[in-house]
């Protein structure tokens, strides 16, 4: 039981950052950012590479920076080169595969053996449960900054860009700039998450990003179906709660082996399909029953 709670909180908090990032790109900017998988691995590779060379704290900042850069590129592709947003994400994602290999010196994984990580530094200082406390602190910090930022003039402009493109095009807001800043922020949060996962697992792997975007979206939607999404604060809370619920299910399945753990990605795909498709399924059912009753 303790194991389940522990794993749930650890992973829920760390991966909760991805949901938070997707809240920025998918909900606020209305862009399905498919570069998320690649950016997550980018953050992981950068973070582990820096930790490997003895800079575990700097590693996290560099992970954030790398994500911001990657987000800027994706945004540049869709704003200045007018590539459709989904394709722009895929292009960046594809390119990142090579970049990530390059960072790990063309090996498909990189492991930390005796090097320090941010978690081991805290453990050495006598702080137990650093793998829960640190991600919790980071999540609180990032979500508070994000919450405040979204209330500033620039934050409002970014929200308007995703909310009503027609309005923004005819306004004094430079939609290219707001899209770039928004995606840079979203991707830097994603890569921070990757960076933390890398140091937590003490390894970076080129394939560890598969499905990150779908899982993140599933968490976001699970959270939103529990908490109403009528204010930014609730939206942010929803990303965390959704992520924790998802990881709880994950941990229970892992522990009890109701079905093989290999099925998890398929089940995730089902969860997200049902969650996003539920409103139209409901509508069809309602109109069908009405039709029958009428006849």
């Amino acid at each position: 039981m303790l194991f389940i709670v522990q794993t749930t909180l650890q992973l829920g908090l760390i991966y909760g950052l991805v949901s938070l990032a997707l809240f920025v790109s998918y909900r606020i900017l209305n862009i399905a950012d498919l570069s998320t998988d690649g950016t997550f691995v980018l953050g992981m590779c950068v973070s582990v590479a820096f930790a490997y060379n003895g800079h575990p704290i700097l590693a996290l900042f560099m992970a954030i920076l790398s994500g911001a850069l990657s987000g800027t590129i994706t945004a540049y592709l869709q704003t200045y080169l007018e590539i459709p947003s989904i394709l722009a994400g895929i292009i960046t994602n594809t390119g990142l595969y090579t970049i990530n290999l390059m960072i790990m010196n063309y090996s498909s994984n990189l492991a930390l053996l005796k090097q320090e990580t941010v978690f081991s530094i805290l453990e050495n200082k006598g702080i137990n449960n650093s793998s829960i406390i640190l991600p919790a602190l980071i999540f609180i910090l990032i979500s508070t900054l994000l919450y405040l930022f979204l209330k500033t003039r620039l934050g409002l402009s970014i929200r308007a860009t995703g909310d009503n493109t027609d309005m923004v095009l005819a306004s004094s807001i430079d939609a290219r700039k707001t899209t770039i800043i928004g995606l840079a922020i979203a991707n830097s949060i994603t890569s921070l998450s990757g960076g933390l996962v890398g140091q937590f697992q003490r390894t970076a792997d080129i394939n560890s990003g598969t499905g990150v975007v779908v899982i993140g979206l599933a968490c976001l939607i699970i959270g939103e179906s529990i908490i109403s999404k009528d204010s930014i604060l609730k939206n942010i809370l929803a990303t965390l709660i959704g992520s924790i619920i998802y990881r709880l299910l994950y941990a229970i399945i892992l522990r009890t082996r109701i079905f093989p753990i290999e099925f998890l990605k398929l089940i995730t795909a089902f969860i997200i399909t049902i969650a996003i498709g539920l409103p139209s399924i409901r509508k069809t059912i309602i109109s069908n029953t009405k039709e029958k009753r009428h006849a």
Partner: protein
Amino acid sequence: MLKISNLNKYFNLNTINEVKVLDNINLNVNKADFITIIGSNGAGKSTLFNCIAGSILADSGSIILDQNDITYKKEYLRSKMIGRLFQNPLQGSAPNMTIEENLALAYLRGDSSRNSFSMITNSDRLFFKEKLKELNLNLDNSLNQKVGTLSGGQRQALSLLMATIVTPKLLLLDEHTAALDPQTAKTVMDLTDDIVSKNKITCLMITHNLNHAIKYGNRILMMEKGRIVLDLDNKENITIDNLLDRFKKETGKLLDNDRILLSSE
């Protein structure tokens, strides 16, 4: 205030479908003018607005607003000086943001003393409330209501407030009451007139409502086939009938806007 000289715009230039949508437009707008523009469908009215606002770029000619040549300036930079309202009431505000946030977006743009990271202050809120009270739509106590829950008329009134909360050098109204029911249209039109005259805003308004054109404009322009065919000083007693007559005399045909006949309020 606004000086348009020899403005030309083609659609599909150098193709078989080439159309001249603006044909050598020359227009001098004085400060605090309220100019109404009428004309048939496809006369180039909206295209003229798009060229002034920067949504499309003219092919030749120049547009000078308050001594700034804005002919090829980027749209979002012009928007600092130009307020704009469209026919679609949903186009002017962000539905998932609150009334307060929408107003803040419009308001903060004009205040260069504040940077990108400034937030809405309490004095801003009081100011917004006061402004909303002037609209008489009972919105002054719903600053935190999402704009998507408002009616079309309320949203258009809010868009109007957003376009004028920082007094623009030029206000472009593109049939902004056409999608509203007659009663709401009247309310929004009265508000418009009120705000425009109170702040002495220079204003161009496209309308299909000849009554509005006569009632509100101090100058009436008629457009046909990309040209301004008539520029009337609205001092004499102009009636709808003699407007239609003069249009016929200038162009040799009837004013055939599909909505004009229906609007007789």
